[in-house]
């Protein structure tokens, strides 16, 4: 069946990218075979082992960022019935950035920055939910309030960056996203959170499948749409806040991955879930590999690459074949 073929090829692509990710880096470029033997059987020198292990954690982080963002994007698009929705629509990204920057100023240690970023994202989300619930917590309310708050927070962010001054200005480059600084601890944290979110989503997949027919019909079938909206957006906010705190905002994945999934495997939620996770992982891990290949030792903002890679891909898939002209 065509869908199965797509899924398998995505999986294969991911595995290839994983191998590349283990092999390529600033220290040395190994062959994939070497990288595997170093990782699994401890061949090679002490340094080789440390480097490949570092790359492994980096790959895991990249994968989890991709999975987290893709699934969050899928949920948001499903819940809000809006294919243009992005997980950052809830104001989480500028909220997390503000949290991060406000923790920088007094000169605290780095775990505080991550915590502040995470809390910033959650606070933004809670604000959106509270304001939207005045209007009844409908999808439209969420979109409108979310977008409005995002813009408001982004302007605050610009002001904050201005006020920080030259010395701390460097840290704001974090705002463009990178997985280069996620060694073991951060990667594990990220994985646990993303996988937990994934499980919670999978538990609700029946309700989310029903949501294809719109809120009314789902409600008539027994789906508690309000509760679902609340719980799912909470999961999205939590996951995206954590991802943003650890790796900075990585744009475009949350929007594109579910789209690519939909175009290739259709709108059945179960298939979409599986496909989105793999595609999200491919997008982010692939972009990270590109960063390492092209950067020449220099780290580049991940968002730039995900957009460059994802946009043409999405365009191509959308306009070819049967669906030509019927976007």
């Amino acid at each position, binding site marked *: 069946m065509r869908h199965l073929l797509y899924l398998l090829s995505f999986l294969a692509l991911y595995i290839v990218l994983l191998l590349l990710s283990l092999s390529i*880096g600033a220290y040395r470029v190994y062959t994939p075979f070497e990288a595997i033997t170093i990782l699994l059987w401890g061949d090679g020198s002490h340094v080789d082992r440390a480097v490949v292990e570092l*790359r492994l954690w980096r790959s895991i982080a990249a994968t989890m960022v991709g999975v987290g963002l893709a699934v969050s994007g899928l949920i948001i698009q499903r819940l809000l019935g809006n294919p243009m929705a992005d997980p950052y629509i809830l104001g989480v990204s500028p909220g997390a950035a503000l949290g991060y920057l406000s923790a920088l100023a007094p000169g605290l240690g780095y775990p505080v920055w991550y915590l502040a970023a995470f809390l910033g994202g959650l606070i933004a989300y809670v604000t959106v939910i509270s304001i939207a619930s005045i209007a009844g917590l409908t999808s439209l309310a969420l979109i409108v309030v979310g977008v409005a708050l995002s813009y408001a927070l982004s302007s605050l962010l610009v002001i904050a960056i201005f006020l*920080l001054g030259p010395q701390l200005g460097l840290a704001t480059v974090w705002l463009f996203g990178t997985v280069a600084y996620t060694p073991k601890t951060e990667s594990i944290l990220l994985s646990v959170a993303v996988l937990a979110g994934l499980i919670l989503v999978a538990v609700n997949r029946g309700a989310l499948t029903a949501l294809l027919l719109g809120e009314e019909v789902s409600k008539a079938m027994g789906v508690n749409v309000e509760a679902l909206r609340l719980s799912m957006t909470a999961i999205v906010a939590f996951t995206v806040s954590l991802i943003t705190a650890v790796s900075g905002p990585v744009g475009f994945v949350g929007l594109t991955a579910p789209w690519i999934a939909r175009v290739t495997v259709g709108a059945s939620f179960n298939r979409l879930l599986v496909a989105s996770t793999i595609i999200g992982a491919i997008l982010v891990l692939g972009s990270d590999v590109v960063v390492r290949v092209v950067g020449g030792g220099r780290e580049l903002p991940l968002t730039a690459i995900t957009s460059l890679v994802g946009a043409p891909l999405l365009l191509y898939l959308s306009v070819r074949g049967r669906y030509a002209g019927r976007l």
Partner: protein
Amino acid sequence: MKPGYGVQGMMRERLTLLGFVAVILVFIVGFSTLYQAISGLRGEVSSLSRSVEEQGRAIEGLRSQVVAQGEALKDLDLVKRRISSIEESLRQVASVRDLERIAEELGRASAELKLLSSRLALANESLRASIRELMSTVDSLSRRVEALAEQMLFPVTVTDGVGDKVVVLRKPSKLVSLAPSVTETLYYIGALELLVGVDEWSDFPAIVKERRDRGELAVVGFWSPRVEVIVGLKPDLVIGVASVPSHRALKSILAPYGIPVVLLPDFKLSDVEESILIAGRVTGRLVEAYETLYKFKLAVNYATLLASKAEYKPKVATVVWVRPLFVVGGGTWEHDIVEVVGVNVYGDMMLWPQVSPESLLARAPEVIIVTSSHGVVSAEDLVNFLVEALGDAAYRIPALRDGRIYVLSGAYEDSFVRPSPRTILSLYVLLIALHPQLFDLAITAIPQKLSPETLDVVGVLSKIAPDPLVAFLKVGLGG
């Protein structure tokens, strides 16, 4: 037995023997006396000759001093002649270029005079007097140059750091500085008292911070200058830096108010030199500018000379932030400074690239310099981060293995991160930290935290460097 030998004969024999012994005794005594006398003489001779030698050496010393003096005197003579020729040219100044040339020569002459006066340590009153006289001549000439500058130089058109031609109509009496490096440059050329407005980060010299805190100096902002405050101050000139976008925008914003904006270039070490001249031209302080420039160049050259005596220039990485990891790359003045005393392993990347822990492992710097951003970043942060990422393999990085991580803080950090003449201080700090053996210091004597309290650069240098150079460095410390 012969008859007649008898007792008389025996007595005669005994007498002869006695006589023999007496003669021998006399000989011995006489000999030893003589010997003593001779050795005494010899001692005297040698002590005499020693004192003669000493005298000879003293005379040599005197003579070499005289020769040095003679050379210094020759140089003094040269300077004297140059100064009088400057005086001559002053009378024939026709164009701004002439004036500039004169200012340059005068600046050099003044600096050389100070250098000379340290060499001529003799208490020869007449020499000292003649030097004092020359210095006062130089002073009065400088004032004449300045007066001329006021008339001739203004209106002046300078090409500033972004390549714009800016016109300054008259010698400014009210200045606004938008950046710490600008404030410091103005200080060095003696234009500090013209400031009426300053940014919130300028803190050197201390008087600037005091006056700002007391409200005597308006705060106009660094990243985003407050236009209304600036306009309210009615300054004759606003000086910013080329690298800040809002400063560039300020040019067109302040143009309708007739306030010119000059931007000093701040990318490379050579930009520091150009900035000094631009600042000098727009404030009319040409002589001071040239003098500062000369001293700065001299200091840089001296440091380069000292560094060339080192057997090996270590590989250096300069970290400015840990999470994410930012380092100093090429095309920056920090890079230029590091390259005098070592090799910047990230010199092939431009500006301040973000890198991964792997790349530190790959480029294996032997020394890591960390800028503490006023205490926010520490060496522990860096080490912890690298160990987190790479485990024990982090210690394969030579700088970690050998414990050669140095954190610049306080005045040493400020002078490193600001492209003003003060940056020469950081050059010498790094020179001492990276090549302690040149100063008879052990590597272990260099503390991890490099600040004026922990490493007395001035003290170390005053042992071997000429006084004026040390004095120039002291200016950077507020002395």
